[in-house]
C-alpha cells in the first residue's frame, strides 16, 4: 500500500490542437477498484493508452507499478493487463487458441499456459466454448474473452475500458462479480472506465470524474454524495395519495422550504434547514396521506452534472 499503483504527474496528450488529456494528476492505490467516469471523448481511453505505453505523452509523466510508462513500457505491460475499447479478436482462432497466443506473447511456459487458460475460461464462463471459433461468439462472449485475455499474464493491475458495452445484464453482473472476486482474492487493482454511472456506482470504491481531458474530482462515492447534500441542505422525497396545486403552493410558503418539484408520482421538497414536521403537517391538513417518505438519494448522474456545471 505504500507505493501507489498508478501515479501520473501533469500527464498531457495533444492530438494536433486538441488536448485529449490535460495535465492529469491521478493516483490509484494498490487493491483499489477505481472508476474512471466521463462522457465519450472525455479522454478516458487516451489515458489508458498512455498508461499502457501504446501512446506517448506530449508532456508529464506516469508511473504504473513503479515503472515509467515511456522508459519502461514493456515492464509496464508485463504487470498490467488491458481490455482496450473496441478490442478485436482473431476470428479464425478458437477461444483457447486465442488465449494461447496471448499467453505465448507473455512468455508463459506451455504447461502453465494451459493450466491458466483452463482456469480463466472457467472464470469467464466460456469453458463450453473453448474450441469454438471466435467468429461465432456474441458480443458479450467476446467481451468476456477479452477480460480473460487481460488476466492471462496474472497482472497486478488491469485496465478495463468500457468492459460491459454490449453485454447483457446477466453478463454485466458476472463481469462485476469476477472483478470483485479477483480484487478480494488476489488484491488485483482495477481501473475501470465507463460512461455508465450505475455501473461505476455499484463496482468502484473510488471514482474520478473526467471531462475534456481534465480530472474534475476524485473521491469515494459517499464523499461525493455528502459534498452534494451538504451544500444544498436537506431534501425529502414523498409519495402522497394525492397532490393538489394548492398543496404545492402552500408547501412553498413554509419557512425553510426553498423549492418543491414534482417528478412522476414523487414530490421532492428542498429545505435549507430541517422542517420535516411543518411539511408533514401541511400535507395532512390538505387531506393527503403520506405513502412514502425518505431522504432524497442522489444518483451519480446528478453528482456528475453538478461537477460539470461547477467546472464550467
Amino acid at each position, binding site marked *: 500500500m505504500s507505493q501507489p499503483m498508478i501515479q501520473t504527474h501533469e500527464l498531457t496528450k495533444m*492530438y494536433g490542437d486538441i488536448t*485529449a488529456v490535460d495535465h492529469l494528476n491521478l493516483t490509484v492505490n494498490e487493491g483499489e477498484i477505481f472508476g474512471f467516469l466521463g462522457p465519450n471523448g472525455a479522454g478516458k*481511453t*487516451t489515458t489508458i*493508452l498512455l498508461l*499502457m505505453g*501504446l*501512446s*506517448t505523452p506530449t508532456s508529464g509523466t506516469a508511473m504504473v507499478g513503479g515503472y515509467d510508462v515511456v522508459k519502461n513500457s*514493456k*515492464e509496464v*505491460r*508485463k504487470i498490467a*493487463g*488491458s481490455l*482496450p*475499447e*473496441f*478490442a*478485436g*479478436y*482473431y476470428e*479464425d482462432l478458437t477461444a483457447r487458441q486465442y488465449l494461447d*497466443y*496471448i499467453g*505465448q*506473447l*507473455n*512468455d508463459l511456459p506451455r504447461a502453465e499456459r494451459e493450466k491458466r487458460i483452463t482456469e480463466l475460461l472457467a472464470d469467464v464462463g466460456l469453458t463450453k466454448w473453448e474450441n469454438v471459433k471466435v467468429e461465432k461468439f456474441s458480443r458479450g462472449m467476446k467481451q468476456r474473452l*477479452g477480460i480473460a*485475455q*487481460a488476466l492471462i*499474464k496474472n497482472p497486478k493491475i488491469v485496465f478495463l475500458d468500457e468492459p460491459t458495452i454490449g453485454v447483457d445484464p446477466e453478463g454485466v453482473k458476472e463481469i462485476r462479480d469476477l472483478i470483485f472476486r479477483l480484487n478480494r482474492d488476489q488484491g488485483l487493482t482495477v481501473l475501470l472506465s465507463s460512461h455508465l454511472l450505475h455501473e461505476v456506482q455499484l463496482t468502484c470504491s473510488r471514482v474520478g470524474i473526467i471531462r475534456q481531458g481534465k480530472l474534475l474530482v476524485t473521491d469515494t462515492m459517499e464523499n461525493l454524495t455528502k459534498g452534494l447534500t451538504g451544500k444544498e441542505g436537506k431534501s425529502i422525497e414523498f409519495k402522497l395519495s394525492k397532490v393538489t396545486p394548492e398543496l404545492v403552493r402552500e408547501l412553498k410558503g413554509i419557512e425553510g422550504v426553498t423549492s418543491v418539484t414534482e417528478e412522476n408520482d414523487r414530490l421532492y421538497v428542498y429545505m435549507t434547514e430541517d422542517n420535516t414536521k411543518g411539511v408533514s403537517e401541511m400535507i395532512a391538513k390538505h387531506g393527503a396521506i403520506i405513502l412514502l417518505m425518505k431522504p432524497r438519494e442522489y444518483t451519480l448522474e446528478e453528482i456528475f452534472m453538478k461537477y460539470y456545471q461547477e467546472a464550467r
Partner: protein
Amino acid sequence: MAGIFTVCRKELYDHFGSKRYLILFAFILLLSSVSAYQGAEYIKNNPQAGFLAIFSGTQFGFSFVQLMVFFGPIVGLVLGFDAINKERTSGTLSVLLSQPIFRDSVINGKFLAGAAALATLTVSTIGIMCGVVIPVLGFGPTLEQALSIVLLSLLTILYLAFWLSLGMLFSVLTKKVSTSTLASVAVWLFCAIMIPILAQLIANQIVPSPIALRGSEGFNPQQSQEFRALIQQRFVIQSSISKLSPTYLYSEVASSILGVTQRGGLFGLDLGGAQPFRALTVTQSVAASWPSVAAIAAGLVVCFAASYMMFIRSEIRPGG
C-alpha cells in the same frame, strides 16, 4: 526476441491456412507445372537447349519466369497489403501491443512469416517442376545447372519478398484495407503492364521504327548496319526505361541465370521461345546482373525500413 517468433509462427499458421494463400499456391503450381511440360517439349524440339529451358522455354502460354514477372507482384502484395491496417481496424492491434513485446516484433514477425510463406511457395513450385520434368526428359540438371536452379530460387524469393515489403508499406501507410488493396493492384498493373508499354512508346518516339521492322521485333541479320544500329538504340532506350520496373529487373537477372536472351517485350521475354546464348558461366552471369539484384534488394530494404519506421512511430489512438 521471443515476441518476433511468436508473431511469426502465428502469422505463418494463418498464411498456410488462409484461402488466399492456398488459391495463389494452387494457381502458381498449376501454371508452373504446365509451363514445365512446355519447357520439356521445347527441350525435345531444340536439342541444343539445356535442362534450364524448363523455366524459360515456351510453346504457348507462360514460362515460369514470365509467370513470375506477371503474377509474382500479386503473390507478394497479397501476403502483405493488409498486414497492419487490418489489425488496426479490427482492434486486434491494440490487444497485441498491450502485451509485453516490443513494437517491432510485430512488423518483423509479420515480414518473416510472409517471406517464409513465399519461400515455401517458390521452393516447392520449382521442386515440383523439376520433379515433373525429369521423368519426361529422362535426364536431370548437371551440377552447374542445379546451382543455377538454386540461384533462380533465391532470386525469386528476393523478388517476391520485395513485393511483400511494398504491400506491407501500403498496409502501414493507409488506414483502410480497401485503399491498400487498390494501391497494390495499381502498382502491380503499372509495373507489369504500363511500364513495358510506356518503354516501347517512348522508344518509338525517340527512334521511330523503320517500316520494315514493324511487327517483327526479331533481329534480322539481312538488314543493313544502319538498321541494326537503330534496333540496338531502340533496345537500349526501352530497357533503360523498363528497368524502373522490378519485374523487368527480375526477368533480366533470371534470363541471365538461365542463359537465355532477354528482350523488352510485354512479359519480359520474347514470346515464341527464348534463344539459348549461354557463353557465360554461372558466376559470370551473376556478376553481370549484380546491379539489378542489388536494385531489387535495395527496393526491399527501402520499403521495409519505411514501413518499420512508420509503424514504430505510429500511435494507437482511441477508436483505432
